[in-house]
């Protein structure tokens, strides 16, 4: 009868040991990356065209290409770690990735958790896609109505709290679009650049982007808090992207209209 006790003890102590031994030795991120020869970057895998999968399973898009630039600069290989909005900051905090370029909006409360690098590399605003027949004119019109959103997006809170909409959050864009078409919600709150593309799609005839874009907020790529050297390197990298017009070039390559923000930054750093 010793056996069951022992096995339980062992399993319990293993669990405890696993939970306790999470301390990871602190060292400079750049040295670590160069030593391991791999730069691990958190990117989206469900956000076309910023980060998505091709049928072979590889992650492609604007942000993976930016990440590749960083890896090339460091002279290492790049490894993409797919993340979603709800776990991207944890991955960086835990050290599971070295760098995060995952369509994250730069927010003051997020700056406390991860080290967001200045200047911002991109920007987008929030708007809704809605059937023209509803005739929405202002954000307040959404009050009390069901509005589809994406889980973990920051603008859900604003649309829900300030404008009183009932947010129905979905896992991915396909599900949210289907819910909108199925009439489960009256509008879909999302990034304006994606919505502009949809309104031009013949499959979405009769749908419009009726409201004024709000929260035109910059996106921030981030490194772990306290990694000052890596932070500086990334800051320099972003400046060089803006300077060379790399972001404009990538927008064109992946079929996005050049955003005012990217144009402005290119002018500024040219």
């Amino acid at each position, binding site marked *: 009868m010793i056996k069951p006790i022992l*096995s339980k003890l062992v399993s319990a102590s293993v669990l405890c040991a*696993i939970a306790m031994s999470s301390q990871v030795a602190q060292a400079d991120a750049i040295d670590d990356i160069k030593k391991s020869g791999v730069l691990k970057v958190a990117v989206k895998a469900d956000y*076309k065209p910023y980060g998505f999968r091709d049928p072979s399973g590889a992650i492609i898009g604007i942000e993976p290409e930016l990440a590749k630039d960083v890896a090339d600069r460091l002279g290492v290989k790049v490894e993409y770690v797919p993340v979603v909005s709800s776990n991207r900051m944890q991955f960086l905090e835990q050290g*599971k990735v070295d760098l995060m370029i995952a369509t994250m909006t730069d927010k003051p409360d997020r700056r406390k958790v991860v080290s967001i690098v200045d200047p911002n590399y991109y920007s987008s605003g929030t708007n809704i896609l809605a059937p023209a027949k509803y005739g929405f004119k202002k954000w307040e019109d959404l009050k009390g109505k069901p509005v589809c959103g994406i889980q973990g997006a920051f603008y859900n809170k604003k649309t829900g709290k300030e404008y009183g909409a009932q947010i129905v959050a979905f896992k991915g864009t*396909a599900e949210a679009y289907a819910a909108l078409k199925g009439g489960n919600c009256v509008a879909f709150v999302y990034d304006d650049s994606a919505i502009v593309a949809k309104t031009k799609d013949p499959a979405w005839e009769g749908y419009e982007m009726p409201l004024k874009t709000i929260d035109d907020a910059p996106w921030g790529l981030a490194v772990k808090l306290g990694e000052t050297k890596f932070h500086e390197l990334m800051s320099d990298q972003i400046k060089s992207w803006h300077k060379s017009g790399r972001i404009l070039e990538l927008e064109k390559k992946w079929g996005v209209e050049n955003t005012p923000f990217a144009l402005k930054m290119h002018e500024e750093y040219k």
Partner: protein
Amino acid sequence: MNQSYYNGFNSRKRKQEYKTDLPVMITPEVKEPGSILSSLSAYIFKPWHGFVILFFCMVSSSIAFGVDDNAKSSIAEVLWRWMPLLLKGFIFNIVISICAMAIGTAAGAALGLGQISLNKWVRRVSWFITQFFRNSPWLVLLFFAMFLLPFEINIGGLAIPLPDWVKAIIGLSLPVMANVSEIVRGAVVSLPSGQWEAAESLAYTRRQTLWLIILPQCVKRMLPPWMNLYAILTMATVLASIVGVSEVMTLTGQALAAEGGRTDLLAPFYSFVLLIFFMYCYPIARWTVRLEKKFSVIG
């Protein structure tokens, strides 16, 4: 479950056809041969169900076709293009299920034996652990494993990475462990006490009785519910998508996003996922029913 095993045991006597009027000698009528489990799974899975699901898949995809007539060929084409990736993701689900089952079975067997231990405290602790994990939602346990376990373990300077899917395996093996524990306990208890008494009269120690007499008889009693548990576990592996493991559900969502959120693809893609799970789990269920029948006490 125990009840039905006894029923099965009794019904062997019934076959010998006692000629008696004495009520004590008449065995109660047993309606269904085999255990509750086999009748249940026979009730849930019948061959025609497969056709119903196939039909459902075809109808749902044809509804999608109807929505977008000019995209008719491209839905099949798109699905075909993504199929290798989705199947790769599904293999990952199977790997997770097999590993979680292996760990859960090993730990659960120990825990189940702990539940029938002679030591009061071992018994109580095992009982508590079993009940705790058996009555917790699988997803909650999965979240616990995901967020409490670190991504890397340091043992003597050697960093062993603990990727998400390993954490998912650990998280899913906890409820499996508790369920296996109950299966083991139930099987041991279901054996007629005569087996214990006979062993004792032959001067077997408790340990010998357990290993040489009781457990070998339990194995075939445990096999069908154990396989049922495995099928349930396999279907539960999609929960791992919620915690970010790149398994078939996650990949389906990402494939749909990569196709630009086309609404007409939603039904065919998820139907495909449904179908591959069905094709994997259905034979297991049928096989379980067959084993149940084979091992049932009635000849």
